[in-house]
C-alpha cells in the first residue's frame, strides 16, 4: 500500500531551482534512501515531504502531518529543556493519547532513560541526535523521514539506530532517509533515489544502479554514474 507519493515535485528559491520535477512513491514498510552530492536537493525534498516547505509545483499525496515523523539534519530540540521535557512537549503537540507513557517508552528505546532529566544543551552530539530522532518517533508515525540521521553518531550508535529503525520498519513504518553514506543506503534501503542539482537521475533498487554501471561496489557505481552525467 502506498503511504507517500510525489508527482512532478519542484521547489524554487527565487531564480534557483532546488528540486525539479521529482516523482516517486513509498509503500508501507519500505525504506527509501535519497543520495546525491552536496546541494543536490535532498534536504529540500525531505522538507517538502515533512511539510516544512511548500512545493512550488507538483503533487504530494501524504498521510496527515501527525502520521509523519520528521528528523531534520540539524537537531531540532530545545537546549534549555531536559530530554524528557522535550519529548513530553512534542508528544503533547502531536496529540499523543498518553504523553507520559510515550515519553517513557521512547526514553527506554533510545537508551536515554538515565539522561531524562538532563538539559539537552549539556548532552554530547550523539545523544542530542538520539533525542532528535526520539522526537521524530514519539507519535509512532506511519512514515518516518530522516535527514542524514547517522552523521553525528559513532559506529556503535549508528548500528543501534538502525536496529531501532528496522524494528519500526518490521512493524510497518515506511522510512525515507537522506544520506551521504552509500554503504548505509545499500545496507538498509530497498529503494534508491539519486539526485543531482535538484534533478532525479535514478530511482530503483540499489542493485540496479550497480548493474547499470557494471560495478559491484555501489559507491564506485554511484560516482561513475554522476560523472557520466556531468556531475
Amino acid at each position, binding site marked *: 500500500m502506498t503511504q507517500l507519493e510525489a508527482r512532478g515535485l519542484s521547489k524554487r528559491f527565487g531564480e534557483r531551482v532546488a528540486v525539479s520535477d521529482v516523482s516517486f512513491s513509498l509503500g508501507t514498510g519500505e525504506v527509501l534512501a535519497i543520495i546525491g552530492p552536496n546541494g543536490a536537493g535532498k534536504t529540500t525534498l525531505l*522538507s517538502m515531504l515533512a511539510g*516544512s516547505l*511548500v512545493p512550488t509545483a507538483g503533487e504530494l499525496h501524504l498521510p*496527515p*502531518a501527525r502520521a509523519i515523523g520528521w528528523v531534520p539534519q540539524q537537531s531540532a*530540540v530545545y537546549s*534549555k529543556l531536559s530530554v524528557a521535557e522535550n519529548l513530553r512537549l*512534542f508528544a*503533547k503537540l502531536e496529540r499523543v493519547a498518553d504523553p507520559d507513557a510515550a515519553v517513557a517508552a521512547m526514553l527506554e528505546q533510545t537508551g536515554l532513560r538515565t539522561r531524562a532529566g538532563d*538539559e539537552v544543551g549539556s548532552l554530547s552530539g550523539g545523544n542530542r541526535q538520539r533525542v532528535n530522532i526520539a522526537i521524530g518517533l514519539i507519535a509512532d508515525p506511519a512514515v518516518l523521514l530522516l535527514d542524514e540521521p547517522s552523521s553525528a553518531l559513532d559506529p556503535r550508535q549508528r548500528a543501534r539506530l538502525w536496529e531501532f529503525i528496522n524494528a519500526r520498519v518490521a512493524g510497518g513504518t515506511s522510512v525515507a532517509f537522506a544520506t551521504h553514506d552509500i554503504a548505509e543506503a545499500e545496507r538498509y534501503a530497498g529503494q534508491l533515489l539519486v539526485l543531482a542539482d535538484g534533478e532525479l537521475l535514478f530511482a530503483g533498487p540499489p542493485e540496479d544502479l550497480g548493474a547499470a554501471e557494471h560495478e559491484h561496489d555501489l559507491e564506485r557505481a554511484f560516482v561513475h554514474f554522476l560523472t557520466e552525467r556531468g556531475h
Partner: protein
Amino acid sequence: MTALRPLLGKDLRILRRSPALVALLIIYPIAIAILIGLALSSSPALPRVAFLNEIPPSQATIQLGSETIKTTRYEKELFQAIQPVRVASVAQAIEDVRNGTTIAALIIPPALPEQLASASQTAYVKVIYNGNAVNQSLVEQAIESKLAQANALLAAQLSKVADSYINLLLTGGRLNFLGASYQILGLVKAREMLAAIAAHLPASSPTRREIVQVEGFAQVAVSHLGGSKSVIGAVAAPIAVQQETLSGRRTPLNNYAVAVAVSVSLMFVCILLASGMLALEREEGTLGRLRRGLVSAGLLLSEKALLAALVGLAVSFAMLAGIGLFVPLGWGRVALWLAAMAAGGIAFATLGVAMGALVRDVRAASLLALFVSLPLVFLALVPQATVSAGLFEVIRIVSAVFPFKAALEALDAAINQSQPSLLEALGHLAALIAGFGAIARLALRP
C-alpha cells in the same frame, strides 16, 4: 488552541532557566522605578557659583524717592537658582572658577546701588565662566531668569516712584529732598488759580490773554501727565503672558516623564523578548518542526506575542507601582493603565515577532530590535517646533507606523488624562497590531 498551553509552558520554562534574563527582568523595573522616582521627587542640584557682594553694608539699601529698595532681597531671589559659595575677593572668585570649585562666579560691584539710584545709567553685575559651554549655559539660564525677575521688580518700584512724582506735579503736596521739605503747588491748583485771576481781569487786558494762554498750557499738562502714568506702568511690564491650552489637559512634565519611562521599558521588554523567543525557535531548528502541521503560524506568533506582552505588562506595572511610591499617581485609574499597557505590550510584541520572523538567530533579533527601537523613541519625542515643518511631517508619519508613539499616548492618556484620548490611542495600536501581525505571518511562510 490546545497547543497554546504547552508552548507557553515551554517558553516560560526556558525563560526561568535563563537566570541572567530573569534577574534582568526583576532588577530592571525596580532599578528604573527607584531612579525615576528619586529623580522626579527630589529637587535638582543647583549649580555651585562663587558669589561676591562688594556693596558695603551701609549702602545695601537704596532710596528711590519714597521707595526703599533692599539689595539683599534680590540676593535671596538669586540664591533660589544657584548654590552660592561666598568668597572674599574677585581674585578668590576667579581662582574658584579656575580650579573647578565652582562652575562660575557672580560679582555684585560696589557701584550697583549708585547706578540703580541714578536711574539714568544701567546697573551691571559681573559673571565669570570657566569656558565650559554646558556649565556656562546652565549658569546663564539660572542667573538670567532670576535677573529678569529682579529687573521686573525694580521696574515696578521705579514706576511707583515716577508715579508719585507725577502725582506731586499734578495735585501738589510735600516733597522731601536732601533733608529739606518743600511744598509743591501742583498743576491742577495752579490752573485753578490762573483761571480765577484771569476772571478778575478785563476782557481786553493783554495780561488776561497771557494768563489764559498759561492756564491752557496747564490744562494740557494735567491731561498728558495723567496719561503718562499708565504709559510708565506699561513700560514696567511691557509684555505679560496669558496662558491658554487649546485642547485637553496639559500633562505635568513629571507625569509625562513617568509615561515615557514606562513606555520605553515596556517597548524594550516586549520587543526584545518576542523577537528573541521567535528567533530562538529558528536558531534551535524547532521552527521547522513546529510549522510542519503541529502549530499554525498564527498560533505560534500569538503565543510569542502573548508571552512577551504578559512579561512586559508585569515588568511595566511593577515599575509604575514603584514610581508611584515617589510620585503621586491616580490609582483610581489603574484599570486604564492596565488596558494601555496591555495594548501597548501586544503592539510592541507583535512588532517583535515580525522582527524575529525576519532574522535567523537571537543575536540578530536583539540587534535589529535595538536598532529599530531606539530611533523610534527619539523620533516620537521630537517636539514640533524644533524641526522644519516638512521634516516634522516625515517624523510624524514614521512615528505613526510604529507602536511607540501610540503606546506613549495611550499611557499618557491613562495616567494623565491627556489628549488624544485613550480610546483613540488604543484604536491606533489595534491597527498596528494587525499590520505587524500580517508582516510576521508573511515572514513565517514555509
